[in-house]
């Protein structure tokens, strides 16, 4: 049976493990430690929230989200940054259950929506999101500036 619950500080070790699995799956570098999650997620002003998904009591995945802001709507929204389901538990509707959970949270907290990103070659996911009625902003692409390049631009600030 599926259960979705808010993560707490005592889940930090499990979360680090799940995040590392997810990063391995996406072949992306990862450097997060328990101390980072404890400091940023479970202090007085958390920078993010996490859900832990369990199937018959076993951890099967997680979701991480934070509040973003839509200036056009004049309202905050949920930004779903990570969603991960362990391979053995896929095809059971867990992803849809997590999205529904977040959508319900957004409605309850009077937030204007749930926003996330998808890889453009992941057509099954895109089809799935479209069936849910999600809008694809197909012409919006993402830029990221970090490290020395960010420092260089910062130095040029008037």
């Amino acid at each position, binding site marked *: 049976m599926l259960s979705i619950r808010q993560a707490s500080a005592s889940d930090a070790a499990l979360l680090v493990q799940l995040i590392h699995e997810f990063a391995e799956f996406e072949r992306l570098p990862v450097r997060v430690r328990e101390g980072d999650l404890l400091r940023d997620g479970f202090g007085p002003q958390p920078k993010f929230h996490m859900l832990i998904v369990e199937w018959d009591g076993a951890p099967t995945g997680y979701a991480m989200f934070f509040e973003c802001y839509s200036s056009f709507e004049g309202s905050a929204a949920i930004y779903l*940054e990570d969603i991960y389901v362990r391979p053995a538990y896929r095809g059971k509707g867990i992803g849809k259950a997590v999205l529904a959970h977040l959508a319900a949270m*957004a409605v309850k907290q009077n937030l204007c*929506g749930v926003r996330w*990103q998808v*890889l453009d070659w992941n057509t099954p996911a895109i089809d799935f999101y479209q069936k849910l009625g999600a809008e694809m902003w197909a012409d919006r692409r993402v*830029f990221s500036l970090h490290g020395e390049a960010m420092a260089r631009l910062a130095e040029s600030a008037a």
Partner: protein
Amino acid sequence: MLNIRAAAASDAPLLKTLIHELAEYERLAHETIVTEDDILRDGFGPHPKFRALIAEWNGQTAGYALYFDFYSTFQGRAGLFLEDIFVRPEFRKQGIGKALFARVAAVAWEEDYFCMRWEVLDWNTPAIDFYRQWGAEFLSDWKAVMLIGDALQAAAGVESPTAE
């Protein structure tokens, strides 16, 4: 002369106007419902949900930037998400857009954020080339998705309110 300053609560009417101008430029004016009260409540209360900068050229309002915090679990650190950046048409080509970007990068650097992130329209090749020159990484295979309105209600398993 260019002056970039942090927006204050007294700028709420101005920010509302600038947001509507950006929406009109992006042809999303019909979907734009932000009010001064929204801006005051969400930007200038005890726990602001965003921060904004106002750019002035010789004392006249030339543009704005609006950003908020995001988080990377892989990095275990927060970044800045630049949601809006807008320069009024009559003030373009004077480096104001770049100066606004640079100011947000300076905030990120000084406040120890690991990254700044933003979105660009994929047909806007001059902008894409411009950002690449700064060493920004173009995550070209990601698309943005938004669940909003009736679809949000439906996904939440909640009855949609009757349309008016």
